[in-house]
């Protein structure tokens, strides 16, 4: 074991003295995370906010509001039951839900329940999206209310219905009947005048807030999952580059050792071949784990990336490092010289990264590409880390990617060490 540690310490020391390798292992992944994070909007509002609408009232008024929300370019609206909508927000699949409780439509009319509120359920960490969404809902509400006062909006019908009700109800006192009748007839005359003078109000707005209906914002906080910002997607994706950087650095160093004679000297020492490979593998795995940890720490402490399950994250980092150590051993025997190993290795790594989410985040991939990405080890490493960062994985959900990573690591080590058993040093 002392020999394995000595071998690993030697390789790590050599790695620390190679600035170019350090850039590819640490600098490049961070650059990738920041670049994709910033072009994806960072922590700011998205171009189209995905929301759910829960219309428990199902009145013409609320349908009108829903239609207006649906027609907005800034929103991507789907209808859902309340429980489902809440879960989608908790999981981070949606930014918010908008609830119209039963009776909401009537409350906008006359004699309705003025305490009835429209409810916006939103993740409190998405403050920018919340205010943006409140603006959309408020605008839709007022446009619908305003529309209802027009001839086509049903406001005058409602007034006439109220006058009929007033005349036919024997329980109303004559003084009250007279007073309310006078007000309703005046209102009907006002609506007729309004219809004749109104301009297009379709784009009109959000003024009149002082007389508007209640909008209540509630926080949906029970479930922490769902990416809070683009960085929570890009930092886990960028670990692919850290893993690839370490993998390639060690693969090239292994073929360099075979070429320069140091590998021969190692083989002539009183240690087995397994010890030599274990030392190299330990150094590679440690370097990969440390590099991934450093990249994620930057995301956590500087860019607000949250870790929802630290033990799972540790397991994901360990499994990913183990997997790419196995990949390193296979890559190291793909050529007989450093340039040939580097060429073949980077070709394979770019393919794994492209299909696995190292370049395009997994969540942004089309369905067919997501299917292809199942064959990329990079994908499983990213999913395992995302599971611990924002996907809210339990151990059961994390098992498949972790299992694939560990299995691939074992296979890579077996194949690589077998191919390294050449007769000539």
């Amino acid at each position, binding site marked *: 074991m002392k020999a394995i540690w000595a071998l690993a310490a*030697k390789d790590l020391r050599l790695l620390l003295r190679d600035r170019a390798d350090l850039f590819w292992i640490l600098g490049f992944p961070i650059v990738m995370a920041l670049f994709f994070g910033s072009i994806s909007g960072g922590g700011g509002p998205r171009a189209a906010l995905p929301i759910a609408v829960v219309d428990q009232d199902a009145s013409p008024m609320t349908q009108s509001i829903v239609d207006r929300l649906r027609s907005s370019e800034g929103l991507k609206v789907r209808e859902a039951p309340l429980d489902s909508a809440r879960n989608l927000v908790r999981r981070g699949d949606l930014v918010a839900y908008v609830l119209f409780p039963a009776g909401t439509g009537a409350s906008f009319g006359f004699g309705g329940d003025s305490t009835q509120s429209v409810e916006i359920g939103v993740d409190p960490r998405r403050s920018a999206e919340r205010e943006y969404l409140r603006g959309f809902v408020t605008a839709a509400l007022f446009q619908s209310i305003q529309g209802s006062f027009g001839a086509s909006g049903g406001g005058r019908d409602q007034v006439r219905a109220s006058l009929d009700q007033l005349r036919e109800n024997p329980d109303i006192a004559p003084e009250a009947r007279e007073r309310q009748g006078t007000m309703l007839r005046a209102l009907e005359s006002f609506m007729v005048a309004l219809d004749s003078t109104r301009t297009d109000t379709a784009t009109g707005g959000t003024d009149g807030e002082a007389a508007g209906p209640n909008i209540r914002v509630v926080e949906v906080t029970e479930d922490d999952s769902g990416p809070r910002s683009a960085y929570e997607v890009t930092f886990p994706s960028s670990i692919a580059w850290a893993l690839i950087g370490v993998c390639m650095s060690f693969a090239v160093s292994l073929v360099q050792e075979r070429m320069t004679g140091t590998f021969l000297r190692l083989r002539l020492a009183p240690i087995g071949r397994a010890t030599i490979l274990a030392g190299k593998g330990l150094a590679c795995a440690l370097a990969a784990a440390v590099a991934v940890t450093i990249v994620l720490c930057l995301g956590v402490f500087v860019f607000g990336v949250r870790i929802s399950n630290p033990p799972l994250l540790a397991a994901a980092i360990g499994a990913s490092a183990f997997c790419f150590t196995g990949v390193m051993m296979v890559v190291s025997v793909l050529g007989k010289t450093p340039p040939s190993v580097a060429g073949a290795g980077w070709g394979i790594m770019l393919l794994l990264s492209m299909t696995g989410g190292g370049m395009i985040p997994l969540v942004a991939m089309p369905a067919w590409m997501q299917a292809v990405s199942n064959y990329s080890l990079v994908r499983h490493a990213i999913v395992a880390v995302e599971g611990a960062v924002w996907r809210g994985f339990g151990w059961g959900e994390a098992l498949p990617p972790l299992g694939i990573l560990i299995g691939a690591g074992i296979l890579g080590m077996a194949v690589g060490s077998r191919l390294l058993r050449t007769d000539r040093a």
Partner: protein
Amino acid sequence: MSLLRVRDLRKTFGDRVAVDGVSFQVARGESFGLLGPNGAGKTTTIGMIVGALRPDAGTVTVDGEDDPTRPSLRLRIGVAPQALALYQDLTAEENLAFFGSLYGLSGATLQERVRWALAFAGLEERRRDLARTFSGGMQRRLNLVCGLLHDPPLILLDEPTVGVDPQSRNAIFESIEALKRDGRTIVYTTHYMEEAERLCDRVAIMDHGRILALDTVAGLVRDHGGKPRVVIEFPERPATLAKAGGTWEDGQWRVETDRPEEVLLQAVNAGQPLRHVAIDRANLEAVFLHLTGRSLRD
């Protein structure tokens, strides 16, 4: 008693026979040379002795054990490979400490051996410099002592002076002579006959994977080097030597003889002043030429 015994070693790479039935023994404390041109099979032979290569046939026995890959046996063998087996981005001290740790050295013992190795290689003042900053000769010296840290009784040096300047070469010779005085058993491969003549008690001459001759340097020269050659230059060709043996070329009389003193006496009695006199004794180059029909450097 032999420390190293090699018997009928054979190794092929594809169709090429690299080593073809090589046998020799090396006694304790002996310095044994494998002399031959590049491609003669010297490095392949060393590779099989240390267990880096698996022989197709034949056996290697070191100190009574016949499996050189066993860790216990490797502790008794020190190797300086022909290729520089150093980590260029580690310092001299770090290289030595790392290789020493692979041989089980640690703590004060390791530090002591590292200090000894640095002093032996004359690198004490450069111990904290990266190997990449060393001259070729300094790297060769470091390469040599990296194989000596564990104080092995059997030392195999594969072309340890390749590509070094004369000053460093001399320093390496002195190091090897010190190891000889210390009673180490040395197997030394080279294609420089001067090195074999200076450092080796016995020499095996190799070519095309086979040992052509094996003896002391004097024995090889005696048996295969031919007679000493006397070269004498006169102002004019003396008439008294007209019927003497030898050849005349550019005013020089050249005679191969077992008795050069008699030839000298004939020349002195020829009645002419001697402009130039030389007696060329045969050497390993002549031995190789005699055995193979070509020069060592061909």
